[in-house]
């Protein structure tokens, strides 16, 4: 169930250039699933006014702790990055529908493709898949080496490959270049990242099941304001979907890219 909670900052650190890892404690952690997101109000003032949607990167139900990883770029995320251990953060969540872990066949292999700040939700997903005995292959693209993160964390879960636009880490280029080269064997793929990446992936593996996680500017985050809609390819049944409440994860082919 969606709840609003003043969660407590348990840890916060900068794990890459302007990339922060923030762990929050609160009871809404119990309801979280991989691929869902939280809507964070970074300040009690009117400035900034709107909440910020951030994916859930790690869920620790025993400790009631959830971790998010975000880039502090604009005004809101910068304020968030200044929160200290013990501070309260106003969180609305968990929101949206996450990745269908059960879509991966037992004993099978899942390919996880991430781009930049789209990588975080794949960490909880990878853990959930591994917990079900599914092998995971991670192929992640970043702009430059200094914004890469979680190499060790992902490596303990499965094969992990990095590609950077400028070649400062891993191979040089985009994830699709690396996928062309690696030709991984897998049963289902999951992806989160910038739209051009999702667009490139959409038709990349025509015969495979795939799930894409989308981003869109949001108002409410709960499906009420129609800010975050995407057109569907199949305009007969439903003309559009809402990223916040129908998504952010959709089976490939659902959203018009």
């Amino acid at each position, binding site marked *: *169930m*969606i709840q*609003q909670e003043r969660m407590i900052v348990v840890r916060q650190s900068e794990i890459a250039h302007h990339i922060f890892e923030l762990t929050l404690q609160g009871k809404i952690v119990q309801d979280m699933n991989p691929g869902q997101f939280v809507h964070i*109000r970074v300040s009690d003032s*009117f*400035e*900034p*006014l*709107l*909440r910020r949607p951030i994916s859930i990167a790690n869920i620790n139900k025993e400790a009631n702790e959830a971790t998010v990883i975000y880039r502090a770029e604009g005004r809101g995320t910068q304020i968030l990055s200044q929160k200290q251990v013990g501070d309260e953060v106003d969180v*609305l969540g968990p929101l949206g529908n996450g990745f269908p872990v059960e879509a991966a066949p037992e004993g099978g292999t899942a390919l996880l493709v991430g781009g930049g700040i789209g990588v975080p939700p794949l960490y909880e997903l990878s853990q959930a898949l591994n917990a079900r005995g599914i092998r995971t292959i991670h192929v992640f693209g970043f702009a430059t080496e200094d914004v890469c993160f979680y190499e060790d964390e992902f490596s303990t879960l499965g094969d992990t490959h990095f590609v950077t636009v400028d070649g400062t880490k891993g191979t040089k280029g985009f994830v699709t270049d690396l996928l062309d080269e690696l030709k991984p064997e897998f049963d289902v793929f999951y992806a989160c990242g910038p739209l051009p990446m999702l667009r490139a992936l959409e038709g990349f593996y025509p015969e495979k099941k795939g799930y894409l996680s989308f981003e*869109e*500017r*949001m*108002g*409410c*985050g*709960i*499906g*009420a*304001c*129609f*800010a*975050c*809609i*995407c*057109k569907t390819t199949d305009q007969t049944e439903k*003309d*559009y979907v809402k990223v916040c*409440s129908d998504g952010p994860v959709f089976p490939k082919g659902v959203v018009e890219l």
Partner: protein
Amino acid sequence: MSRLSIQLPGLDLKNPIMPASGCFGFGKEFGNLYDLSKLGAIMIKATTVETRLGNPTPRVAETAAGMLNAIGLQNPGLEKVMNSELPYLERFDVPIIANVAGTTTEDYVEVSEKISTAPNVKALELNISCPNVKHGGITFGTDPVIARELVEAVKKVSKVPVYVKLSPNVTDIVEIAKAVEAGGADGITMINTLVGMRLDERTGKPVIANGTGGLSGPAVKPVAIRMVYEVYKAVNIPIIGMGGVTNAQDVIDFMSAGASAVAVGTANFVDPFVCPNIIEELPAKLEKLGVKRINEIIGRSHL
């Protein structure tokens, strides 16, 4: 509870708080969060004759103490609203105010005639002021003659009282208010959003795909209060005030300026529980002001 109750044409309000149109969808999402029967009323999303897909995304952008939106009247269309959306709301003890939009007078008449027969629709709110629709809509809200004619046409067919939602993007809002009153409007709701724009810092292009968007939130409250204050002096029909309401004090302010009830828009995105929270805070606020019943403060700015 009678301390907070308000009687308006068609509307028997437990309290003067209602979510504003477009900021609450058709209620379902918030119905999962709290009991909608707590609300004074609900203003549902604008309904048009046909399904509308609205504008391309991005549709929202943040501004200082406010936000811009250009949703573009996206809605499933009259039939689906009546068959799939309104029935859900019947389980709650709350009157619905149906926000009606369109491109032509005929559009407004058709939606008004039909939607006013829905059992829980107790009033209409004619959206003659949405700044995000390219054809029509906006002219109804800026020309007093056209506005009056539209109200007259709708009044002929509506089974419930008709409120008219005014645009703040005019030189003289009092003139429009008087025109819709003369046309037979039972009440006025105000204000809709101010037309604004935000540019992308890097490219310099508008952030919102539509170019312009409607400005709402705390930033616009001073403009809204001023307009409610002016219109209250000029008309004899009740006003439902809105524009930047986020807490009980804002409600007191709008009612002091002359509103008989208050709608909450953008604040629902910041805090989805804002409406029930305000309702809970109001009695203590009244206590502090030494006011017994909330209707005593309506228009007190003018005393």
